[in-house]
């Protein structure tokens, strides 16, 4: 039946006469459709959770939509939760495109928050300089925290997934140490936190909401700049080539170590700024790390993967996860459902997106002749938009 190899005449080939033929490019409509399907499955699971907890699903969903999207206050909560996700998501998009698996955004966010707190409480700068200095310190602290695993990866080939993750735990305990030890507020009893920031170190918000708009503006500008850089600059070209084929990058004279380092530092710096926004815009002091970040560093991985290499697609992806987080609050407060639901939803959508990725990139064909080489699936999640995809990888073997 098939002539693919000595083993091809065996059971597996006879069992199915159709086989999966991967393609180099995924049509945009399929990507959107499959992503929406993944979200729909997650929504079904959540509905099932509603039912199993005895909450009427229509009531639950209408409450969630009203309190996260329709009411101004709810919408502001969705947006303010999308802010750190935007910042971290656009950074991770860059890092993933260079195949640097930064899982440490959570720790880099905390490092940024520590940097900003140091400036806010101890620098004694003139008032107009405080906020810019906090963002600078936060970005630098985050970048430094992320640069260590990147250096270890570039120089020694140390697995960055584990080091960045370990750095999350280290950052978490350092923050706990700071708010329980040297930076503990004099008034803090029971809960631990730092002194309150002075007025000039607090970010302005829209009206009475908690939407700290300067961070939102920074995030949107950053997304725009990175979209431009990726599309138009030499650096964007280098990132593109490196993400597609490290060997090709070497032939093109691209210093993979340097590009990885720059991207990792950029990503970590963006996560650091997200930390600045959280302390200066929401809490106005350094607080317990699990309150400071609700797992934005992990959820932003999904933001970057949902965006599939397109910088501008980070915006809807971050908004979607902002909605998931805000909906989690509504479920907990208004519907008295467990607070862990957003984590489950995030994990589920991530799993479904990973699982459905191959579906966007192939079709069933009758099994005749030799099988063409498969596209590494990882490329689809990390590489750039398909418009400029190299067709060379596609053809038959």
């Amino acid at each position: 039946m098939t002539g693919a190899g000595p083993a091809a005449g065996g059971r597996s080939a006879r069992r199915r006469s159709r086989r999966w033929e991967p393609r180099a490019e995924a049509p945009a409509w399929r990507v959107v459709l499959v992503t929406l399907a993944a979200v729909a499955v997650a929504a079904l699971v959540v509905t099932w959770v509603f039912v199993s907890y005895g909450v009427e699903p229509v009531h639950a969903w209408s409450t969630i939509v009203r309190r996260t999207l329709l009411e101004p206050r709810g919408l502001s909560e969705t947006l303010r939760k999308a802010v750190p996700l935007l910042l971290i998501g656009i950074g991770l998009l860059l890092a993933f495109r260079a195949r640097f698996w930064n899982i440490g955004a959570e720790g880099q966010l905390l490092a940024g928050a520590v940097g900003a707190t140091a400036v806010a409480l101890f620098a004694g700068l003139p008032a107009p300089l405080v906020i810019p200095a906090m963002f600078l310190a936060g970005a630098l602290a985050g970048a430094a925290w992320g640069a260590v695993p990147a250096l270890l990866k570039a120089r020694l080939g140390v697995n960055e997934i584990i080091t960045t993750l370990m750095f999350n735990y280290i950052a978490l305990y350092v923050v706990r140490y700071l708010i329980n030890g040297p930076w503990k507020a004099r008034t803090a009893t029971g809960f631990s936190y730092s002194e309150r920031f002075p007025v000039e170190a607090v970010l302005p918000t829209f009206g009475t909401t908690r939407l700290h708009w300067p961070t939102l503006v920074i995030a949107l500008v950053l997304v725009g700049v990175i979209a431009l850089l990726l599309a138009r600059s030499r650096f964007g070209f280098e990132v593109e080539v490196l993400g597609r084929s490290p060997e090709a990058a070497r032939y093109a004279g691209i210093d993979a170590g340097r590009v990885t380092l720059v991207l990792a530092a950029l990503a970590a710096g963006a996560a650091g700024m997200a930390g600045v926004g959280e302390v200066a815009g929401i809490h106005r002091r350094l607080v317990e790390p699990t309150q400071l970040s609700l797992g934005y560093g992990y959820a932003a991985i999904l933001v970057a993967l949902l965006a599939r290499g397109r910088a501008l697609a980070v915006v809807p992806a971050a908004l979607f996860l902002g909605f998931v987080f805000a909906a989690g609050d509504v479920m907990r407060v208004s519907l008295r459902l467990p607070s862990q639901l957003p984590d489950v939803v995030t994990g589920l959508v991530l799993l479904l997106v990973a699982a459905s990725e191959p579906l966007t990139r192939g079709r069933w064909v009758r099994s005749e002749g030799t099988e063409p080489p498969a596209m590494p699936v990882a490329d689809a999640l990390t590489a750039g938009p398909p418009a400029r995809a190299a067709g060379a990888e596609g053809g038959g073997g």
Partner: protein
Amino acid sequence: MDLDLLVVATVARALAFATPLLWAALGEVIAERSGVVNLGVEGMMALGAVAGFAVAFTTGNVWWGLAAAALAGMAGSALHAVVAITLRADAYVSGLSLTMLGLGLSALVGRAWVGRPLPDPMRTVDVPWLRDLPLLGPMLFQGQHLLTYAALVAAVVAWVLLFHTRGGLVLRSVGENPVAVDVAGLPVRRTRYAAVLIGGLLAGIGGGYLSLAYRPSWGEGMVNGLGWIAIALAIFAMWHPLRVLLAGLLFGACFTLAFRLQTVFPPELLTLLPYAFTVLALVFTAWSRGRRAFGAPEALGRPYLRGER
């Protein structure tokens, strides 16, 4: 005499601390030897811990709990196997989502049991005969949980199976050169499935040890990075079961010694030491083997599709 006692106590504590790491790391070694990275260890351990506790609490029998823990870990790994092996999706993303899903689900399911002690937890036992050995007896064979002794045995069994049986040879070959295995007419996917499922089973047991024996209770932060440390341990041990045993003891000893510094350091800084030590261990591994990347299975992390070169 005093020093002897300190060494004995340290090794014994280290062994208790290392037990969940040993189980999970052995599982990861088996999975990765077949060429499949599973970053879901943390999630599988959490699922194992919560399932084990829930069943042990309800039935009053820790052994049913242990079986549930193993099955829960295996169920998690089955998810990863389908996505990463059959669908050939990215194994990193799939494993990560398994970790997130496992942590979220275990927290969701385990809400009812938070803060409740297990009425009848796993008891500590001595190993007959071996307990009377001088020095080694009190170090390794007294007052530990059955799962700790079993972990020592499991490491040896895994070594024999991987390196001294035909099945082990096939499993390792699938991880090194799946094309050759396929051409030889041996099942690549089925072998990988088996390896990943066994890996999940062992990770589940590791999680069960936490909630049934080590700290007989359930709480959201129970696994707290141990799954990730186990992955690091597999790398540090260069994917070899016996080295996992030694490296696990070394990890455990370092953590235990760190806790003896309690009088000098604030507690938050002590808790971060295991994580810092893990990073150092990885740096040391990378540095000591220099540019030569030996030990890692050749086809690690690459999905297999017949016809792909």
